[in-house]
């Protein structure tokens, strides 16, 4: 029931459609540049697909995080949390429904990215693998980030705090992917990449799409995304117990 209400609010309310429109504009600009810009055009076709897929995963997961971070604290600020808490639904059902609503953004982002990946990857037989890898890794990261958002939202006193903390954590998680190549080498660099679910997931996608590795060869890179998705999803559902009408800091 909560999930249905959440999906209706997001999609009929128009917020999710606007976010999806912004996402598609971003992918359109990226795909156009990759296909036509002479500086980017030297990228191999596999690299072009990988770049587009990585951006789709990153932004799709970011959308799930943003919606997740707005769930409980947003209801509290809009004055609708009391009504929500009074509905005859278990607390865990509330956060589960909110989580499913946030994940719908990722599903939409993935569906939108399909034509772009198809266009960039057609002719070299990597469309299927790319889409499957994107769906697998993107879903794991979206579950992780949406759950993180719901968890932070449940514990935050205000929506501003929730969004700020969530975005800060996201930036901290993305930072290792921007390290220079030399910093990512050696056991310490690899360990840092492996324990970071975002860096590990994107590394795995790159190995499948660019290097055409088999699914099992680099499967160990999926350990941290799987653990993060499972642990944070459980934490987000359990966090329903800590939801208070006035928020953690003020109440």
């Amino acid at each position, binding site marked *: 029931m909560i999930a249905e209400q959440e999906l209706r609010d997001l999609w009929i309310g*128009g917020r999710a*459609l606007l976010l999806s*429109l912004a996402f598609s504009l971003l992918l359109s600009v990226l795909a*156009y540049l990759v*296909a036509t810009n002479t500086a980017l*055009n030297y990228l191999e*076709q596999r690299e072009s697909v990988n770049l587009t897929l990585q951006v789709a995963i990153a932004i799709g997961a970011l959308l799930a995080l943003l919606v997740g971070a707005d769930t409980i604290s947003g209801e509290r600020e809009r004055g609708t949390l009391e009504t929500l808490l009074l509905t005859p639904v278990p607390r865990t059902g509330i956060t589960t429904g909110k989580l499913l609503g946030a994940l719908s953004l990722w599903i939409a982002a993935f569906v939108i990215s399909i*034509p772009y990946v198809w266009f960039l990857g057609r002719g070299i037989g990597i469309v299927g693998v790319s889409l499957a890898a994107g769906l697998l890794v993107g879903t794991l990261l979206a579950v992780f980030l949406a759950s993180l958002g719901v968890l932070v939202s449940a514990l935050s006193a205000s929506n501003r705090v929730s969004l700020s903390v969530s975005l800060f954590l996201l930036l901290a998680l993305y930072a290792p992917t921007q390290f220079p190549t030399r910093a990512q080498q050696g056991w310490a660099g690899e360990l840092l990449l492996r324990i970071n679910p975002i860096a590990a997931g994107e590394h795995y996608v790159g190995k499948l799409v660019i290097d055409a590795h088999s699914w099992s060869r680099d499967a160990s890179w999926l350990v941290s995304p799987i653990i993060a998705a499972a642990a944070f999803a459980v934490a987000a559902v359990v966090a329903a117990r800590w939801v208070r009408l006035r928020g953690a800091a003020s109440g």
Partner: protein
Amino acid sequence: MTRIVVLCCVLAIVACSAPSLASAAVTISPSRTQVSTSIGRDFTFSTRVDNKASTATKPLVAHLNVLSLRPGVYVDPEDWSSRRTVFIGSIPARGSRLIDWKVKAVNSGDIGIYVAVLPQSGKAEPPVTSPTIHVSIAQRRTLNSGGILPLAAGIPAALAALAVGVRFSRKRR
């Protein structure tokens, strides 16, 4: 005093008799001297470093270099290969070392590649270089960019239309 002078002379003779790279007859032979590829592609080749002398060489270092054979093309060798320096150590008398190189064609045009071998000690003597490997790199349009515009414009337009439609239907209710 005489002993010291003799010792110095002996040492000087020994130092002079240590073969330089050229006198040690070190040669470098690439596996290919012509490569045709297209921009963005990887290609590989190997170089064999031979020591034709009857004595072992000193420890050596091999270095790959990349340059444009036409003016006006900027080439940054670091973009072309992430492993351009190989420490090959000492090569025994009449022995050889095989080195594999992996290069990415970053620019189109006529590119020259060569491998230089020099002593690891840093001794001031000219390095030995391989014959030039001439790489002809064709401009490649990796994608059919002609079809991207309808897709890039169509999907956001469809989503915008959907958003407007949902908004209107919501207002009508």
